């Protein structure tokens, strides 16, 4: 009996393999890899230590698998890049060789060591410390069971611009339910505000409205306009979302969109859709082709809500759809995946005082110019000045708020192209001279360079240099009554003064003002520029660090319509892949309570950020719902009875790691 026990112990005695990666010269260029290997060989329980050029490559992985089989390794440490990059790769590899995936540990000697340390000797010492920590820790690792949960086939898409619409249609066409949530009264986003699209000059509404109508009438798409997501709980495969449907004061089931209420309403407010360049009624649809074609009452400008009388809309509505008593409604939905397509905000150029936006009426933003050009816009599509006359000359200033240390360092990627488009529209509709004032022309997309060439031949004047100011102080007869754009022509090296009638500012695309709230709500991250961060900048452009939450379109960064549509389809494809697989594997690294030790103090109940811990009244103990537990370990640290174990991050494992890094 005693002998048998010894034999068993010998079988489970840790036998560790350590593999140090060169990563080409990324690691080996700084860290003395052979020295780290020699060091690893001397660590307790290490049966073998090896080095290889690229551990993540097929031969690298095979090396590990062969050693597991031939030498009987039961623990594997790879010292290479970040576990956030390749932990899944190596876990999968050792699993293929018959080991439990949790009997693996990674030492991050690239991102945290070779790339950040100048001195080769110091980098090598740090790499040794990190390897030693991984070895000490893995000695204590236990095999864990991977949990599988089913994927709810419904999808929540937040934001009804072109990205949201595209993703919704892709998923709905594949036969799955989509909830498309939009905060405005209609879907369409910024794209429906545009006049034409570059470089093909398609009418924006003409190509978008068919998609909007399909989304509005699709049997698998439930449109939730004038709604916002308030709360998200759960995890990939089974999220629960609470959505606030703001009161429209119009009963959607009765309204047929006849528009009589809008016609009869005597009260007006600035139109958000036309950026304040025109007015709309207090009961309104933002634009004629709105989807759904159901008006909403704006409480802020409705006479009944402000003064207690009017109700003209109610009187004239034959279908009795007006309901002044309507309240906001909270709707709860269950979904398996979420796609965030919340778009961008246009940059407000008012702070750049030198360009005179807000001071000179004929200095307009690009988006305002889109509306001015649009045949259903405030001027009926005529390019006119504020006094109604046709401009004789127009300056288009690029990079307003973009590529500017004071505002946004990034390039907004679309401005060069929409500026060229404006030139064409101006030339088509007026006889005005057009001046493009640019820093660099960036015409990178398909057909974009050709469009630039075409515009160059249409008689547009290109001036290289960022203007210093727009002023009305004339110094010559020809400048009188004009706006003078002052700057340097950096190709000629001279100061120039260009008198024009109208100035268009090509404003930056920036992250939504409420992007921070959205990021917190969905547990995703923002970059320094406030746009949402994708899981990997090259290889995983639509996933986020939160499983089951995807991003597409301008909420991830400025991009044009083709890129937005491509990204939206990519996000939809990712969601469809999860739906068709039907189940996902969840991390096994959850917390468990030893009920023998639990004193029932309930401290953990309140601390858990995921509400995963319940108190069982009858037994006077707390219990963790492991489907909800995300394995953060907060409860473990807080438990006064040390009754909670964090699998894969046990107190002993972390203590061993501390010991390891301090060699």
């Amino acid at each position: 009996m005693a002998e048998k026990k010894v034999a068993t112990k010998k079988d489970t005695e840790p036998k560790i393999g350590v593999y140090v990666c060169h990563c080409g010269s990324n690691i080996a260029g700084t860290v003395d890899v052979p020295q780290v290997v020699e060091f690893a060989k001397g660590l307790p329980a290490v049966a073998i230590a090896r080095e290889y050029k690229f551990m993540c490559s097929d031969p690298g992985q095979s090396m590990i698998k062969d050693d597991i089989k031939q030498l009987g390794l039961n623990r594997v440490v790879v010292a290479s890049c970040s576990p956030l990059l390749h932990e899944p790769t190596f876990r999968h590899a050792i699993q293929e060789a018959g080991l439990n995936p949790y009997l693996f540990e990674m030492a991050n000697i690239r991102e945290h060591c070779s790339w950040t340390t100048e001195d080769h000797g110091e980098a090598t010492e740090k790499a040794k410390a990190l390897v030693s920590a991984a070895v000490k820790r893995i000695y204590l690792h236990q095999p864990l069971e991977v949990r599988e949960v089913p994927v709810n086939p419904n999808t929540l898409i937040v934001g009804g611009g072109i990205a949201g619409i595209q993703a919704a249609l892709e998923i709905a066409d594949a036969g799955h339910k989509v909830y498309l949530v939009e905060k405005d009264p209609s879907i369409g986003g910024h794209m429906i505000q545009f006049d034409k699209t570059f470089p093909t000059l398609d009418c924006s509404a003409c190509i978008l409205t068919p998609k909007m109508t399909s989304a509005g009438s699709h049997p698998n798409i439930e449109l939730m306009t004038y709604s916002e997501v308030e709360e998200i709980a759960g995890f990939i495969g089974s999220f629960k979302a609470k959505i606030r449907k703001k009161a429209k004061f119009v009963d959607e089931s009765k309204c047929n969109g006849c528009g009589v209420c809008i016609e009869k309403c005597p009260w007006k407010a600035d139109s958000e859709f036309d950026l304040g360049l025109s007015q709309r009624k207090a009961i309104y649809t933002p634009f004629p082709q709105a989807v759904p074609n159901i008006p909403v009452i704006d409480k802020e400008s409705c006479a009944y809500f402000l003064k207690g009388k009017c109700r003209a809309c109610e009187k004239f509505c034959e279908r009795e759809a007006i309901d002044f008593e309507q309240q906001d409604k909270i709707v709860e939905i269950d979904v398996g995946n979420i796609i965030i397509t919340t778009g961008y905000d246009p940059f407000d150029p008012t702070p750049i005082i030198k360009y005179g936006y807000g001071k000179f009426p004929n200095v307009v933003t690009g988006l305002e110019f889109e509306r001015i050009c649009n045949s259903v816009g405030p001027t009926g599509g005529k390019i006119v000045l504020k006094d109604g006359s046709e401009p004789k000359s127009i300056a288009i200033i690029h990079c307003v708020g973009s590529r500017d240390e004071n505002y946004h360092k990034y390039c907004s990627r679309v401005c060069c192209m929409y500026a060229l488009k404006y030139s064409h529209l101006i030339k088509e509709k007026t006889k005005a001279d057009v001046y493009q004032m640019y820093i660099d022309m960036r015409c990178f997309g398909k057909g974009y360079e050709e469009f630039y060439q075409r515009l160059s031949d249409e008689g547009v004047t290109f001036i290289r240099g960022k203007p210093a100011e727009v002023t009305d102080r004339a110094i010559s007869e020809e400048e009188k009554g004009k706006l003078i754009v002052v700057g340097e022509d950096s190709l000629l090296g001279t100061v120039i003064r260009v008198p024009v009638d109208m100035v268009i500012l090509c404003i930056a695309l920036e992250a939504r003002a409420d992007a921070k709230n959205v990021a917190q709500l969905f547990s995703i991250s923002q970059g320094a520029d406030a746009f949402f961060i994708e899981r990997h900048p090259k290889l995983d452009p639509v996933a986020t660090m939160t499983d089951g939450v995807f991003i597409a379109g301008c909420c991830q960064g400025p991009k044009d319509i083709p890129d937005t549509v491509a990204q939206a389809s990519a996000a939809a494809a990712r969601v469809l892949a999860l739906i068709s697989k039907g189940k996902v594997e969840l991390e096994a690294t959850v917390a468990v309570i030893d009920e023998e030790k639990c004193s029932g103090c309930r401290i953990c109940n309140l601390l858990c950020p995921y509400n995963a811990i319940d108190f069982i009244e009858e037994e006077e103990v707390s219990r963790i719902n492991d489907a909800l537990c995300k394995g953060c370990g907060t409860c473990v640290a807080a438990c006064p009875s040390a009754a909670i174990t964090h699998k894969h991050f046990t107190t002993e494992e972390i203590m061993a790691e501390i010991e390891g890094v301090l060699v």
Partner: protein
Amino acid sequence: MNHEPKIVGFLCNWCSYAAADLAGTSRRKYAPNVRVIRVMCSGRVEPTFILKAFQLGADGVLVCG
């Protein structure tokens, strides 16, 4: 005066650990004295971890999350 302090850093997997990765990807150089231990949340860090680090000779402990 050749003293090189030893610092143990407890970094949250989701924010500061990823940020330390980003520092690497961006090739930012910093002193090699910080040795990082990844936790799934800075809430996982127990006071005893910090004491243990000091006991084993650390000169400083960094908790980021």
